[in-house]
């Protein structure tokens, strides 16, 4: 059975030598991968080994990040000198957009940018059309600029500058679609389900490689073969320009295809329908101790569903039940299971059920159901019970509930291994530390959490990461000296804080965190968030007062003076968060960054309802490109993977990672655990509505 309608027109999981989806070798096509696909390709050919991650963000839009190691390349420096690199590492970004889909009589047409930021070693733009002929044959033709216009040009559109903007890291907009234009073409043919062949005519002159003696361009024709090893793996081999042989291996997965749809978890308890006659019976309210018996039964039944009862208030006709959800990554499922437990445990006269979701000790939302709706709609589409549910701010109904005895204090610990990677240093692109980490969380009283993490490095080479080069620093060194922090091998205190979370008024949330906030800074961080329960917009403000920690990451602090200037005490931001819909989310922060630089950060994330997130962010502050150094301004990629997507078992656990091509001192923020937006958002209506189908699961 084919699940939700999705155009599978001109889709492919094959990638080319640049790691972008397409059936050819060096040339692009208008093919796209299925939405949500993330493919990693390692290719080796001629002078370069490229590792590329390509993400199909929407059915028409794909983005790639590539890390290439080039050998034997001679680079012309600004002073006109030649430098010979043993291995030169280069980062590049691609974007492709298909603006026309294929029809019976028309090819699909896409526009693309290859290596469109920074040094643009592979810089090229193209417009390409692909048409399928029958099931197995796909023909491609296009025109290209830049490298793709460097052989057999038939015309030109102005001149293409070859200067680098800023200190790299800036979009090369001055080059786009300029200079010589050449045509390229190709064909791919699927011989079997696993085996396909490619033939292409390349418009890439490989000028630099030829000049540096790395490749003899004897032919414009490349041929290749692609073999699908399994659903996830593909292997390709191809000839390059009659001189070299290239190979590539790709590995692919889809954010929209979890290990099992809907999860493996056990069945929920069904709704228990009341008998008409029992509803009017209020006799139970007169008996002593009945409420405690019922409270105990609710707690026990919820525990079987792996949900924790936090607080409980039972009246003759209504009940308010506060829960903690340590289990279900999809909040509607926790609420749905709680609602069903309540239909089985509360006296029949109780008609109004209010479920309060408690996060960090504060009521982040309440959802009220009529019990008769739960009875009536158990077998109806989930949207019906969503329409009948009433979401309210936690301030209205969530406060002053009688707490369970075991609600506070609670202590959680965990001991486990950790791996901390350090990427993209030109001397050694992949470094890592590994060791053991102990974490503890002590929930002291409503809203009060003491939290700590200590790690002991067992092995690794992160300490070999070179620090800032002396005399180069133009701004206080707030991050670039991270290397000094990883040097010591003693146990390190990653963080040790006490935090208070509160709900000062309707629609607002607050946080104050004090202590050793992160590996490099100690201090106090205060945050206020405005986020109505049914709003897609949130506004936040954060102010931090910090002192740099000593390099050994124990209890000492160190001087704020650095070669680039004094690290200021105060940084802070105003933030706006907005769910754009269709799986996109944006965030803008404006304020003062760690080095005292004023500026703003723009972030855009592609969010999948199952918890996957892939996003980009960029920060521009008053620090000029020249003073910022390599990369010109701070930017990066971040990814969140929900563990339940892989295991099929419900869990709130996620793995998140942020990748910065270059970490410098401009546009940096202090890291604080428990920032408010992500902790409360999941319990609010817009977010819960996305996966409301899980309510009855």
């Amino acid at each position, binding site marked *: 059975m084919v699940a939700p309608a999705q155009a599978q027109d001109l889709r492919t999981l094959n990638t080319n030598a640049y790691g972008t989806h397409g059936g050819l070798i060096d040339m692009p096509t208008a093919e796209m991968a299925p939405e949500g696909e993330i493919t990693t390709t390692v290719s080796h050919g001629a002078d370069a080994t490229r590792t590329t991650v390509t993400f199909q963000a929407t059915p028409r839009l794909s983005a790639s990040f590539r890390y290439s190691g080039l050998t034997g390349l001679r680079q012309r420096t600004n002073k006109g000198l030649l430098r010979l690199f043993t291995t030169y590492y280069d980062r590049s970004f691609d974007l492709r957009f298909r603006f026309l889909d294929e029809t019976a009589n028309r090819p699909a047409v896409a526009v693309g940018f290859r290596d469109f930021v920074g040094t643009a070693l592979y810089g090229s733009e193209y417009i390409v059309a692909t048409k399928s002929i029958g099931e197995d044959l796909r023909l491609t033709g296009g025109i290209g600029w830049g490298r793709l216009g460097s052989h057999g040009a038939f015309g030109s559109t102005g001149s293409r500058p070859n200067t680098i903007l800023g200190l790299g890291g800036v979009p090369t907009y001055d080059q786009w679609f300029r200079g010589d234009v050449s045509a390229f073409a190709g064909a791919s043919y699927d011989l079997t389900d696993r085996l396909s062949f490619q033939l292409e005519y390349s418009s890439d002159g490989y000028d630099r490689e030829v000049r540096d003696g790395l490749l003899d361009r004897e032919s414009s024709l490349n041929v290749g073969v692609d073999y699908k090893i399994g659903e996830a793996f593909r292997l390709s081999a191809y000839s390059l320009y009659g001189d070299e042989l290239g190979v590539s291996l790709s590995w692919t*997965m889809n954010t929209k295809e979890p*290990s099992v749809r809907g999860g493996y978890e056990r069945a929920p308890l069904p709704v228990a*329908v009341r008998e008409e006659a029992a509803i009017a019976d209020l006799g139970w309210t007169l008996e002593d101790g009945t409420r405690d018996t019922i409270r105990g039964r609710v707690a026990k039944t919820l525990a079987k569903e792996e949900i924790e009862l936090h607080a409980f208030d039972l009246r003759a006709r209504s009940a308010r039940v506060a829960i903690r959800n340590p289990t279900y990554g999809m909040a509607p499922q926790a609420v749905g299971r709680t609602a069903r437990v309540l239909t089985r445990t509360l006296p029949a006269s109780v008609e109004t059920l209010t479920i309060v979701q408690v996060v960090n000790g504060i009521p982040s939302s309440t959802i009220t159901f009529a019990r008769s709706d739960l009875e009536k709609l158990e077998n109806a589409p989930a949207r019906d019970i969503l329409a009948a549910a009433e979401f309210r701010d936690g301030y209205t109904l969530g406060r002053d509930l009688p707490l369970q005895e075991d609600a506070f204090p609670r202590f959680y610990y965990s001991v486990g291994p950790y791996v901390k990677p350090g990427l993209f240093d030109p001397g050694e692109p992949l470094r890592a530390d590994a060791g053991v980490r102990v974490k503890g969380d002590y929930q002291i009283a409503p809203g009060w959490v003491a939290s700590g993490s200590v790690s002991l490095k067992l092995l690794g080479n992160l300490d070999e990461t070179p620090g800032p080069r002396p005399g180069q620093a133009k701004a206080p060194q707030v991050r670039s000296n991270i290397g000094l922090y990883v040097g010591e091998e003693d146990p390190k205190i990653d963080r040790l804080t006490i935090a208070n979370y509160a709900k000062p008024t309707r629609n607002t949330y607050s946080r104050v965190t004090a202590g050793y906030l992160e590996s490099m800074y100690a201090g106090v961080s205060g945050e206020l968030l405005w986020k109505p329960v049914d709003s897609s917009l949130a506004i936040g403000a954060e102010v931090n007062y910090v002192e740099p920690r000593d390099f050994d990451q124990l209890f000492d602090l160190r001087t704020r003076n650095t070669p680039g200037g004094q690290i200021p005490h105060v940084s802070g931001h105003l933030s706006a968060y907005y769910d754009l819909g269709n799986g996109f989310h944006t965030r803008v922060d404006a304020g003062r960054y760690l080095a005292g630089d004023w500026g703003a950060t723009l972030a855009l994330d592609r969010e999948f309802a199952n918890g996957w997130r892939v996003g980009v962010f960029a920060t521009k502050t008053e620090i000029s490109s020249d003073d910022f150094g390599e990369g010109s301004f701070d930017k990066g990629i971040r990814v969140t993977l929900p563990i339940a997507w892989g295991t099929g078992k419900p869990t709130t656990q996620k793995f998140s990672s942020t990748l910065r091509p270059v970490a410098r001192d401009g546009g940096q923020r202090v890291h604080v655990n428990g920032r408010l937006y992500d902790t409360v958002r999941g319990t609010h209506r817009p977010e819960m509505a996305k996966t409301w189908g899980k309510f009855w699961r």
Partner: protein
Amino acid sequence: MNVRALLITGAVTAGLALAGCTNNPSRKATALTVGKQILQPGGKKDTSETYVQRVSREAATALENTDLPVGTVLLPARDTGAVLVRIETNGPYGTWGTGDRSSITMRDGMITATRGLGDDLMSSDIDGVLSLVAQKSEGTAERVQRFLDGENKIYEVRTRCRISVQGSATRGPTMVREACRGDDVAFENRYAVNTAGQIVESKQWINARNGHAVVKRLR
């Protein structure tokens, strides 16, 4: 089972500090639990006896030990099956549970939902087809089945189903066939309907992962 998804999570879990021990219920996924699942994706397999033998043996025990309605379900596509005991009713719907806490919800013997199988049927609209099948009448009606997609959003599988009666038995149940067809999907269900219009035995399509459910009502 999407092995790709499981493998990456296994790698991530193993590599990134999720392993180890904890008392925190929200941090239970360890490298060990993920690893186990990679090695044993579908859960335990029956060994000495076939699942069909096991289910019939367990059904006999269940009939002795409970007064509740009892039945059996087999999922041949997944080489498994279970005894069903009706644990709850809600109007015309009955929810039947298994020993390992999966459940099937049926209306007069026609499956409307499953839980705990993975890729579960979340709800169904079967008014039209059920009334034709129960009355043993030929005709065509709509059927809607709802599932969760990979993002946990509901999608609907809409089909048009033709009900045909396979000869009218003078004694015993009548065989009724339901052939459904929709965009990208086609399946066939068979029902044995008794004189009271109840489905006593059936073979009903759920989806590609779970295949057909062979359901038999014993009491």
